[in-house]
């Protein structure tokens, strides 16, 4: 369950940067090839957020598609898994997108 550690990292990063804020929304990016399950993060977020500045905050997760770059034909194509084949048939593919885990932004209440 690395999702728990991932979620705790998210909360720790936000708490460090915005220690006195009440966070209303957290915008996360979890790439489809990142190896992290968004549903598990949602589950952990509620539990791990208790008593922190993100307690009660909404979690907004975007899941960018994987992108493969083919060394054989030069095409970039959507990659559903890290072993994706290029439509041209080549397996000489580098993953160039959809593997990131980012805290994009947070929305903070002005009432505190």
């Amino acid at each position, binding site marked *: 369950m690395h999702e728990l550690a991932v979620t705790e990292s998210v909360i720790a990063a936000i708490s460090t940067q915005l220690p006195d804020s009440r966070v209303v929304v957290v915008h996360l990016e979890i790439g489809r090839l990142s190896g992290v399950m968004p549903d598990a993060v949602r589950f952990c977020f509620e539990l791990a957020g208790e008593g922190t500045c993100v307690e009660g905050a909404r979690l907004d997760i975007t899941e960018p598609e994987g992108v493969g770059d083919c060394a054989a034909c030069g095409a970039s194509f959507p990659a559903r898994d890290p072993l994706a084949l290029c439509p041209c048939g080549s397996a000489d593919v580098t993953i160039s997108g959809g593997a990131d885990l980012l*805290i994009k932004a947070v929305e903070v209440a002005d009432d505190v």
Partner: protein
Amino acid sequence: MCETCGCDGGDAARLTTLTAPGDGPGHAAGHVHVHDPVPVPVHGHGHGHDDGHVVTLGQKVLARNDDLAVRNRAWLAERGIAALNVMSSPGSGKTTLLERTVADLSPDRPISVIEGDQETLLDARRLAAAGARTVQVNTGAGCHLDAAMVAGALAALGPPDGSTVFVENVGNLVCPALFDLGERARVVLMSVTEGDDKPLKYPHMFRGADVLLLNKTDLLPHVDFDMDACRAAARRLCPGLRVLPVSATRGDGLGAWYDWLDEVTAAP
């Protein structure tokens, strides 16, 4: 939050130091925290919804771990220490491999081990008995080691300059793949009883590997395992991956493993 002292450093894991036979007296138990959060600059500060404002962070989720891993790597490099992150499923034979490696090599070079387990000191005791100074990190519910735990363990170990440190990660092929520890190389171990399609099932782990050990080859006559298919699957994820068949219990193939170790530990 730390169960031992109640501090909320967040990175606490229980540490126990075990000395190798002949290492002289000394036993320390405790835990180490890394308390200084790594500040990351806030990149933007714009106004959004009516009921509040948006703070743009654009920060990697694992930025803190990655930053600590960079520090570990620098700390190790300054001392010429090669740290190897050893990962596998539970039961693949990591501890047996390391036990044998320590027994064979430690008379000629100092080896220490950071032993990660959720609970117990069993594996750490085996490695200490084989001759390695060992620090046990009990992660409790944690399913992987992170860079902060390794930082604490390195401080407790104090490995000599130019030595080799094995980090035996928690048995798990999923979570450890995500956490850079500051290691010089990643060793992935699997046994021939696990199925030759294992690399395809755990792509992140195999993709980041520097060497793959296929253990328990003494069992090959009894299992349906296609060595070439496994090698091909692993290399689809990691072209050029070194794949070394070994039997840690019988000693087969360990020469090639020791040669690889010499190579990777000699590199600056």
